[in-house]
């Protein structure tokens, strides 16, 4: 009988366990998975003094409501999130980027994300989870990872096998910034598109469609005309690839993407912009801007430096 656990009172829309993901499996058709917004994932773990590659609970739009049973435990929530801690009959307003000490009987109610998609709940201690290929990340399409590869559901229990007993009150001043301009490197099939199509791609606005999930982000807007072939021989995909199928609407591959695809690649989102891209909600505006490979490498170095700096400030 496990004495420390969270019980799920409300599951939320897409609540999963995520960590750094699993590598070297594309060749058998298994994507990377892992936390969509890597910076917020790392910060959540650091706030509760976990190892940085520890599993966390990722949620989208509406998060879960969790009732706690057990010894005092630290939690932290990152992202841009409205949440509340219900203790006895009081409601404590939750603040992101701050640790909270949760007591027996408390309920963490993660009401919603604020003009963003993903948020993270880190728990100070070890969660009892199944690992597959060294990762607990849940891939709901292939049913891989913790919880039999399925989203968390109401009435389920999350068992904590070990608690970090020291109370802490870590805090970080950090505000998530939004971006509209997504920087890309031209894709390997860039020249499949008409001059007008290329111009549209860089000059017009696209909007994030509702049909977006952990696998991909579909965009709506002016159609991008293909003048060569709307299919290519199927080949590998990576996170951030922008494919344009025959209907002319771009699709950006995200962390749970299919590993092989047969649509022309017009571009690839640079690594530095990925965390912010995934946070764009349906209806958000996107404009693509071209950068050179060397600039993309420098921008990633700067982004990574900034992330490390934030981690070291906790």
């Amino acid at each position, binding site marked *: 009988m496990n004495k420390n656990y969270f019980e799920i009172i409300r599951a939320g829309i897409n609540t999963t366990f995520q960590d750094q993901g699993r*590598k*070297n*499996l*594309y*060749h*058998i*058709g*298994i994507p*990377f998975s892992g936390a969509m917004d890597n910076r917020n994932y790392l910060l959540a773990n650091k706030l509760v003094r976990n190892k940085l590659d520890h599993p966390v609970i990722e949620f989208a739009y509406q998060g879960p409501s969790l009732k706690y049973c057990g010894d005092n435990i630290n939690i932290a929530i990152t992202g841009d999130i409205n949440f509340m801690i219900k203790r006895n009959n009081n409601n404590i307003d939750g603040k992101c980027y701050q640790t909270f000490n949760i007591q027996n009987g408390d309920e963490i109610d993660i009401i919603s994300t604020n003009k963003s998609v993903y948020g993270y709940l880190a728990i100070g201690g070890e969660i009892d989870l199944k690992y*597959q*290929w060294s990762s607990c990340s849940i891939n709901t*399409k*292939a*049913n*891989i990872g913790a919880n039999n*590869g399925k989203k968390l559901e109401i009435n389920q229990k999350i068992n904590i096998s070990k608690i970090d007993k020291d109370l802490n009150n870590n805090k970080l001043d950090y505000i998530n910034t939004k971006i509209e301009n997504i920087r890309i*490197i031209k*894709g*390997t099939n860039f020249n499949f598109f008409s001059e007008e199509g290329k111009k549209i791609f860089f000059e017009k606005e696209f909007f994030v469609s509702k049909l977006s999930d952990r696998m991909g982000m579909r965009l709506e807007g002016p159609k991008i005309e293909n003048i060569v072939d709307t299919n290519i*021989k*199927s*080949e*590998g*995909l*990576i996170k*951030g*690839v922008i494919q344009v199928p025959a209907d002319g609407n771009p699709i950006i591959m995200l962390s749970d993407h*299919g*590993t*092989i*695809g047969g649509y022309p*690649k017009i571009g*690839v*989102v*640079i*690594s530095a912009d990925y965390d912010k891209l995934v946070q764009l909600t349906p209806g958000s505006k996107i404009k693509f801007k071209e950068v050179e*490979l060397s600039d*993309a*490498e420098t921008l*990633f170095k700067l982004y*990574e430096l900034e992330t490390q700096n934030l981690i070291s400030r906790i």
Partner: protein
Amino acid sequence: MIKNILNLGDAALYCDFGKDVNKETNIQVIRYFKSIQNQNIEGINNLTPSYNKLIISFDLKKMNFTELKNIIENLTITNINELKNKRIEIPVCTHENFSLDIKRLEQILNKRREDIYENFFNKEFFCYMTGFIAGMPFLGDLDETMRAKRLETPRVKVPKGSVGLTEQFANIYTFESPGGWNIIGNTPINIFDSSKEKDPNLIYPGDTITFKEITKDQYHKHNE
């Protein structure tokens, strides 16, 4: 041999082995894939071999495009004879409950279903690659007269075990998934098993596959 190495975004190499899709080119891709895999190069986090391309993704925190391109260009590649490949027979039931698109194929190919199946079951297939969804094998080559395009509107749900045809290839849906291939039957065999971490696929690139027709009774007995 690799004809050209380009960058795919800022964290992947796109190795192009030429335009053609044939066994010879694909064997070159698989040779490179296995050689790179065996060398455990620090920083590489994924290899995706396909018909005529190999994509190598890497951790941008550990290396960059130019560095990895240099390593790949100077690699020693394993000889083809050292590749270990298997022969596998896959049972398939073509009962009408499973052969969702056989009527469509009869029309497109202008063949009777008996002839379509005779051609299919007498064929030896080569596994070019696995992926899209976990463990899905892409098997070739179908005869010229057996080639049909994808469904115009893909199915939202293709049942697990479905065997499909498109252009020169056959494939098997390892679990329920959206998809647009022409479905001609279903196998009761588990092609992908995530509980076997070391060896989750039944079929790997380079393997030889044949299909064997089974009755509905045999199909159901298989899962008992």
